[in-house]
C-alpha cells in the first residue's frame, strides 16, 4: 500500500478528467463516452484523497482542497444527468473547470501536515468537507451565471432568467456550506486554542472575504438596484473570488508532473 503514491493516483485522475472533457466536446453528445472516463476519474480522485488521508495519519493534510474539489465537481456532474441536454454548455464549463483545478493541483502540489494533537476532532474534518462543498457550489453557481450572460444563450437552449435562478440556487447552497465550514472552524479554534480566531493562518481572512462577497450577492437580489445581468456578472465574478482567494493559496510551487 505504501508503494501507491497518492500524487501519482491523482495525476491519473487528472488525465482521465481531461479525457472526459475531450469526450464532452465530441459531436453528437456522446454521454456514454464521457462516463467511461468520468467514472474511473472519480474513483482515482477518491482514492487519491483517501490515500493522502491514510498515508498522513496521524497527521491531517491541510492543503487537500484542490485535490478534493475536482472530485466534488465531478460528483455533481455525475448526479446531474438530464435528458433534454439543454445545459450542455454548463456541463462543458464545469468539466473545463474540473480539469483546470485538477491540473493545477497536479502541477502545483502543496504539502503541509497538522499534528494529530491539533486535528483530533471531527470539527477539523467537517471544516474541510463543508469548505470543499461550499467552493464547489459557488463555482457551479458562477458557471450558471456565465451561461446566462452568454451572448448566444438562446441558441444554446438556455433561458437567461432560468440560468440566473439556478445560479442563485447554487449560491444559496454554497453559502450554507461555507457558513457551516466557518462555524466548524471557529468551534475547532475554540476547542483547540481557546480563542475564536487562530491568527496563525491568514486563510481566515480570505474565507471571511468570500463570505461577505456572497452575502453581498444574496442582498443584491433584494435591492432591485442592480439589473439581472449585473447580478449575473457579479455571480460570475464569484469564480475568480473562489479560485483566486481560496484555491490559489492552497497551491504550492510548480513541479513537473511527469
Amino acid at each position: 500500500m505504501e508503494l501507491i503514491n497518492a500524487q501519482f493516483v491523482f495525476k491519473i485522475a487528472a488525465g482521465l478528467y481531461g479525457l472526459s472533457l475531450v469526450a464532452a466536446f465530441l459531436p453528437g453528445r456522446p454521454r456514454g463516452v464521457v462516463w467511461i472516463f468520468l467514472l474511473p476519474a472519480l474513483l482515482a480522485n477518491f482514492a487519491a484523497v483517501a490515500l493522502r488521508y491514510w498515508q498522513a495519519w496521524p497527521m491531517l493534510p491541510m492543503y487537500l482542497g484542490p485535490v478534493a474539489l475536482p472530485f466534488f465537481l465531478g460528483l455533481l456532474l455525475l448526479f446531474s444527468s438530464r435528458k433534454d441536454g439543454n445545459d450542455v454548455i454548463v456541463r462543458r464549463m464545469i468539466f473545463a473547470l474540473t480539469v483546470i483545478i485538477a491540473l493545477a493541483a497536479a502541477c502545483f502540489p502543496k504539502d503541509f501536515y497538522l499534528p494529530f494533537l491539533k486535528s483530533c476532532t471531527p470539527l477539523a474534518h467537517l471544516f474541510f468537507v463543508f469548505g470543499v462543498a461550499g467552493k464547489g457550489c459557488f463555482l457551479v453557481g458562477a458557471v450558471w451565471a456565465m451561461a446566462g450572460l452568454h451572448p448566444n444563450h438562446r441558441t444554446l437552449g438556455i433561458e437567461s432568467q432560468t440560468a440566473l435562478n439556478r445560479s442563485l440556487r447554487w449560491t444559496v447552497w454554497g453559502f450554507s456550506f461555507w457558513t457551516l465550514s466557518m462555524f466548524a472552524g471557529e468551534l475547532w479554534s475554540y476547542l483547540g486554542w481557546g480563542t475564536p480566531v487562530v491568527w496563525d493562518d491568514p486563510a481566515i481572512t480570505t474565507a471571511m472575504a468570500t463570505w461577505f462577497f456572497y452575502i453581498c450577492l444574496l442582498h443584491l437580489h433584494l435591492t432591485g438596484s442592480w439589473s439581472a445581468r449585473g447580478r449575473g456578472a457579479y455571480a460570475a465574478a464569484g469564480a475568480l473570488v473562489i479560485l483566486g482567494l481560496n484555491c490559489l493559496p492552497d497551491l504550492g510551487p510548480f513541479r513537473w508532473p511527469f
Partner: protein
Amino acid sequence: MAVLIMMRRLFIIWNKLGSIHLTVILCLLLAVDLTCGYVCLNRRTTLFAPLNDIGLAAWIDTYGRYNLAYTAWFFILLGLLTLLCVNTFVCTTDHVAALMRTRALFSFHRLFFKFAPHVMHYALIVILSGYLSSYLFAQVLDTRTLVPGASMTLPDTKARINFEDFDPVYYRSDRLPAFRDRVLRPRARLLLTDGDRRRAAVLTANRPVNFKGYGIFLKDFAPKEKEGGMDRRIRIDMSIRKDPGVRFYMAGMLLFTAGLVMYLVEWFFFRKVKKEAL
C-alpha cells in the same frame, strides 16, 4: 416643534442606517478589506497572534499602533463590522416590525419561515458581540505548569485544580516508524475541588475542561514519547481563560444555523421557483 424636527432627523438617520444599499456597500468593502488583510497577515501572523492573549485594548496600544502599515486593515475591519452590526440591527428590526404588522396575511408556518433571515441577522450581531467581548473582557492567565501531585488555585476563588496523573495514548502502528510510541492523545487526569465538592476531569487536546467559569486548555505537555527524548519529566502546560464572549458566539452560531435551516426550508419548499436539476 424642536422635538418634532429632532424626531424627523432621527427617523431619517434610522432609515439611512437600515438601508439595504448600505449593507451591500459594507459587504463589498469588508470583502476588499479582508483581501488586503490576507496580504498584510501573510508571513506576519506573529503581529496578530498576541491578540488572543493580551486582548484587544492592549494589542491596539502596542502591536496595533506601531505597525500601522500592516494593521490598518484590522482597524478598518473593526469600523466596518461595527457599522454592519448597526445596519443589520436597524434593517432587521424594521422588517420584523413590518412582518408582525402583516402577520394576519400569512399562515403560521409560512410566517415562521419568513423570520429565517431575521434570525440569521440577529445571530450575526450576537456572534460579533461575542467576539468583541471575548477580545475586550477575556481574562487570560499566564501559562500554568503542573507536575503530577501539584495543584493551583483559580484567581478570586477557593477552587483548586489538582493534576493527578498523566495517562497518554501512544501511536502503536509501524506504518510511520518516526511516530512509533509518540503521544497521540495526551490525557491529564485532574481533580477539581471547590469547597466540599470534588469532580474528576480528563484534560486533553481539543477537549477543554470548564470549571467555575474558567476554560482550561491543554497548551503543551511532556514527555512527548514513551521512551527517550530530552524532556522526560511529566508536566502539563495549561492555558486558562475566563471568557465572557464564548457563550454569546456559541449561542449566535447555533441561532445562525437554525436560521439557515429555516431559510433553506423556506427557499426550497415555499418559494415559487421552478425546481430544476443542475
